[in-house]
């Protein structure tokens, strides 16, 4: 009995310390830090950094993909906006859906999206990715992209010119500065 009592009193002593440790651990998890930072002006600085390094995933899906690729080429020099094409989803911040999403390709696209680290954004490029475009009534395409991805920017056109895509990126940058993008609003 004595032993048990002793043990009990010891845990009573340890408990407040444990609480502090627990709180500390909770605070140092990434999401807790992010939640805290969101409430401070420091978030503006973070956003400034993020919006100026929007690396996009080179993942051409339809004819729009050609425009997307040449946007990343030297002629348009998107580096001046901090926009750089990346070939791996693990290094990318923005996924551009550049073309029709077929039902067969959907699982692969989802996988790419899941592999991208947070924070991440989606740009719908071209009529196909917005609503099916010319393949509106096809048996094999997905026409409601909105249901599957949190889309921030829609760029209409068939295909949109590279200038339009850059305009889309600039709009996304504005959204990030204004904290109106869907990642920051938690609307994903």
């Amino acid at each position, binding site marked *: 009995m004595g032993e048990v009592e002793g043990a009990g009193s010891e845990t009573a002593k340890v408990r407040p310390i444990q609480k502090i440790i627990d709180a500390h651990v909770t605070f140092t998890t990434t999401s807790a830090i992010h939640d805290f930072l969101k409430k401070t002006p420091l978030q503006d600085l973070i956003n400034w950094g993020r919006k100026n390094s929007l690396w996009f995933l080179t993942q051409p899906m339809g004819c729009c993909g050609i425009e997307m690729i040449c946007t990343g080429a030297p002629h348009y020099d998107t580096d001046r906006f901090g926009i750089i094409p990346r070939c791996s989803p693990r290094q990318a911040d923005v996924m551009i859906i550049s073309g029709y999403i*077929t*039902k*067969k390709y*959907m699982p692969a696209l989802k996988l790419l999206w899941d592999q991208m680290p947070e924070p991440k954004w989606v740009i719908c490029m071209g009529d196909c990715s917005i609503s099916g475009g010319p393949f509106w*009534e*096809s*048996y*094999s395409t997905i*026409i*409601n992209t909105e249901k599957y991805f949190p889309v921030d920017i829609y760029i209409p056109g068939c295909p949109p010119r590279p200038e339009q895509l850059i305009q889309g990126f600039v709009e996304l940058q504005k959204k990030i500065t204004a904290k109106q993008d869907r990642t920051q609003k938690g609307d994903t």
Partner: protein
Amino acid sequence: MNTTGELTLNMLKEKFQVTEMRVESPNRVWARIAPDKILAIAKFLSNELEFDHLSSIAGADYGEALEAVYQITAYSHGIVLTLKAKVPKSNPVIDSLTPVYWNAAWYEREAYELLGISFRGNPNLAPLVLPAEMMGEYPLRKDYKGYPNPT
């Protein structure tokens, strides 16, 4: 040389049962054949008439019947021969051309998936273009109901 296409048709008519045929131009001809003769005809064409290239297999839906359409050409004499074979929709089975033309396997897989024409003797009628959940729906048939209708 003008009648080479016609000659081919006449040879086919002599040897096999040809129900309908037409000469579109000196080197473009087509014939409608009995479906059970397709393999024999293909063997005859490739062995004796130098038709060494199967350029495509298409398909069509005519309500009660499905039709396999073969485009067979030759590098040496340049005739494009179109063979059409109707099979009933209730039992759409036709012999595979893989023993004669190896590339038939790919076209047959596609026609099987999209129209449901089954090719007897194809070594591998495995899924090719459709996603797994759409297998067996035959979207290119006229009575296919799966089109999206969001309006």
